């Protein structure tokens, strides 16, 4: 009995802890929707996909930020996560997840695991998520966290994302969360016909455009600039 009572107490504590974040998370989703409404040309006429918003309303973003920043975890802003990296602004995460259009049978590649939050958002939307991080310490931490939180369809790897992950592909969607000067040819090659890639393109250290690259069923490549953004360079020294 005592053990059961103890387990019950822990469960209550966890639930209370989760409830504490439920309201800010819901507020974050509302903010994302309001932000999307400001950009009718960027987001499709119906707004962001309900499935994406639903997932954003469930993934515990506060677990992906350092403890000292948890108070701002659900604000619509990027936050530092150590190693000189940032966790992307929630709106951008939602927008990129929306643009890549992951389906339950999709295999999605993410370049730049970072905190692991984007992979966690993609996880319920896709069959498999393969994610690559170049900074070993960051990649190992996020892999552990994703496993602990039960995102079991996420495969992680430490390496240079420029060359993609052929063994894990080909991919229905590729999502690049670090800046690049051009679209890496290996990534285009690993995209399935009918697949979509979302990538910031510009200069690594200057302004960029979030760009949607699509491969048609007959293999033709097209692109569309979505939004001016500024992503951090691919990897930074620890701060």
């Amino acid at each position, binding site marked *: 009995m005592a053990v059961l009572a103890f387990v019950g107490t822990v469960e209550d504590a966890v639930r209370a802890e989760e409830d504490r974040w439920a309201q800010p998370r819901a507020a974050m989703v509302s903010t994302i929707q309001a932000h999307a409404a*400001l*950009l009718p*040309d960027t987001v499709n006429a119906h707004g962001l996909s309900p499935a994406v918003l639903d997932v954003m309303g469930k993934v515990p973003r506060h677990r992906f930020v350092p403890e000292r920043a948890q108070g701002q975890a659900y604000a619509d802003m990027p936050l530092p996560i150590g190693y*000189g990296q940032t966790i992307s602004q929630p709106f951008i995460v939602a927008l990129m997840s929306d643009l890549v259009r992951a389906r339950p049978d999709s295999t999605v590649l993410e370049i730049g695991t970072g905190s692991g939050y984007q992979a966690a958002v993609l996880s319920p939307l896709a069959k498999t998520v393969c994610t690559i991080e*170049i*900074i070993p310490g960051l990649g190992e931490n996020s892999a552990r966290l994703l496993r602990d939180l039960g995102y079991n369809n996420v495969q992680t790897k430490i390496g*240079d994302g*420029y*060359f993609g992950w052929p063994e894990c592909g080909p991919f229905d969607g590729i999502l690049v969360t670090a800046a*690049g*000067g*051009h*679209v*890496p*040819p*290996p990534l*285009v*090659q690993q995209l399935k016909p009918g697949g979509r890639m979302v990538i910031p*393109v*510009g*200069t*690594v*250290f*200057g*302004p960029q*455009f979030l*760009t949607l*690259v699509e491969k048609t069923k007959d293999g*033709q*490549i*097209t*692109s*569309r*600039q979505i*939004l*001016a953004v500024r992503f951090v*360079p*691919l*990897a*930074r*020294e620890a701060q």
Partner: protein
Amino acid sequence: MISYLAVAVISAATLAYEVLLIRLFAIVQWHHFAFMAISIALLGFGASGTWLALWQHWVGSRFTLIFAASAALFALSTPASFLAAQSLPFNALAIVWDPGQLLYLLAMYLLLVVPFFCGATCVGLAFVCYGVKVGRIYAFNLIGSAAGALGIVSVLFVLSPSDALRLIAAMGFVATGLVALDRRLVFWPALSAGGTILALTVWTVLPEEWFVLRIADYKALPGALKVLGTKVLSERSGPLGLLSVVESPSVPFRYVPGLSLNAPMTPPDQLGVFFDGDSMTAITRFDGAREGLAYLDYTTDALAYHLLGEPRVLVLGAGGGSSVLQALYHQATRIDVVELDPNMVRLIREDYAQYAGDIYNRPDIQVHVAEARRFVSSSRDKWDVVQIPLLDAIGAAAGMHGLSETYIYTVEAFEQYLQHLSPGGWLSITRWLKLPPRDALKLFATALEALRRLGIENPEQRLVLLRGLNTTTLLVKNGVVTDTESAKAKAFSDKRSFDLCYYPGIRADEANRFNVLDEPYFFAGATALIGTGRDAFMARYKFDIRPSTDERPYFFDFFKWRTLPELVAIRRAGGAGLVELGKLILVATLVQAAMLTAVLIMAPLWARRQVLARSSQIWRVATYFFTLGLGFLFVEIAFIQKFILFLGHPLYAVAVVLTGFLLFAGVGSATSSWFAERIDAWYKANPDRGPQLSAIQLSIIGIIAVSLLYLLILPTLFDSLLSLTDIAKILASLGLIAPLAFFMGMPFPLGLSRVWSGAPALVPWAWGVNGCASVLSAILAALIAMTLGFSSVVLAASLLYAGAAMILRRPLEVAG
């Protein structure tokens, strides 16, 4: 005599610091802060005039003490204020959305003005204490300044900018010693010697990291250095800029602007080369195997090579050499490479020759260290392909280059390029793709205008415009584009997922297939520009896409005031990124300069006007010296621009023109009282010879006549002198500047002499007001030039000088 030397030394140090500050700002911030450096310097001059006006009775009897102390303070504050200013968290990019940045800008002003205040106090003090020798003091001031301007450019070939900063500081102590020696004082020379030794000790003993230039966080180099394992391998510094070679082993650079989405291969390793901590180019590892360069056939600028075979190629602005490798890949029979910065050439030819495949020592590649326009205009060769690659950073997209004048993209430049194309040859120019379209359409309009000026009928038959994911390339043919060439362009573009935006006969449905835009903006813009309604189209377009010209060479200035409210209103939706910052920063600088001028110069004088002089002449004096302050710098700045193409580089133009102006204005100043006496004597001897003109009026007539004459004859004259050697060109420039500057050196000392004899209490007031006008003139001249062109700046100066002549038509009455 020796205190004149002290005036010359402190003048040289002050002007050298002004020029150096432009260089330092270019490294730690951006090029357009040059205007701020100029106005800070002039603000210091003006504020010192005010200070002297308020305390003239006290300082008048303490010349040596104040001069020596000011010079010593100059020495101490020169490095200290700059190092303090660069540690402020100022971010120029944030000015649009963060008003707090203006406070940092203000703090920078206040810190950096200190050395100029001290230097100018030395000179102003000499005027206050030795007014009767004003012509001679002014001459030493100007000659010293000329030596400083020329000297610092030479010094920067040898010393790094931070070492040059310390050298200038030491000159302050030298001036302290010189003025003290003149008075045979033992204490001050000893202090001076001690100070100089101290300065030299500080130079060597203080931690080097104290003097490290802190490049703004939002420039490219600091961003690059945050990448894991990235480090600066070497640096080369010169007066043209600081080149930093950077290696990034964990995340290779892979810098290939415009690489096609369909490129089947990855680029080789590269080293990044950052210019003044920003614009990046890359040195590509090349092992001599041509197939390793195949990726260069997948960029928009490769099209020219598909339209003709085995061409002779001219690359204007090679940077790290990518375009040279591209020409090699396409089996060019001969490649002429023009590069402005000798240090960039040395990196590829010497420091990293092995890495770069020793390309600059190949017999089929000729490297020319020269300015592009000057090289083309003085060459008699013709090429099949003239390639102008993409060299500036995409930061230009944020409008940071809006104030940079560039003579590469003007109508006149296009005319010259086209005249150097062999029959059927192609001019190929690549730019970053921007939305809404700016660069591409401005280039398109420029090409059309150049073809028209060359008398080509149906110029639209000679153009091809294409775009990739993030670049556009404009091709202009020396001949009509044939159907075969159009077909080749289509095949080239289809294979690489590039969109053709224009070729003769293009259909709308061909223009927006691969890199899909909401509308085929580029096609629509290009077709509007070839139509009869092009002027109306340019007028209503949100950005300024009128062709730039040698007269108004601001290619990167796309700003329209009309569009600003719209962009600010949509800033939350990304509009802030579209605001062209350059002109806004210029206006912000003007407003701040005006406010500081009012506070530091005018308000104290105005508050004590009754004490300073109970003279009814105060407004005449103020207006005269205000117009002179504006006029002098207007002429100087406009003629610096006029000489850029002739002398081959803005820096050389600044050094030569500034030196010429200061030197010959110094001569004019030194002879001004003699000139005035001769005029008076002549009129006394010939009382019936027409209306009596004063020396001031005659000198101003000289200024206006020579200025206007030069506006008319300089272009033709420069063309005829183009084949001269560099030294001969510099001498010719000085010869041309001499008469104009000689006359310009007169109105100030002649006016000051009149004030000295009529209302001596107003001398510092005159000095302050003149400085105040100068603060504003550099910025105003830039704004006028960007809107109306440099000839308008000269015309404005002529009007100002004419106004000045009218103001002092009557002699000043003796103060009450």
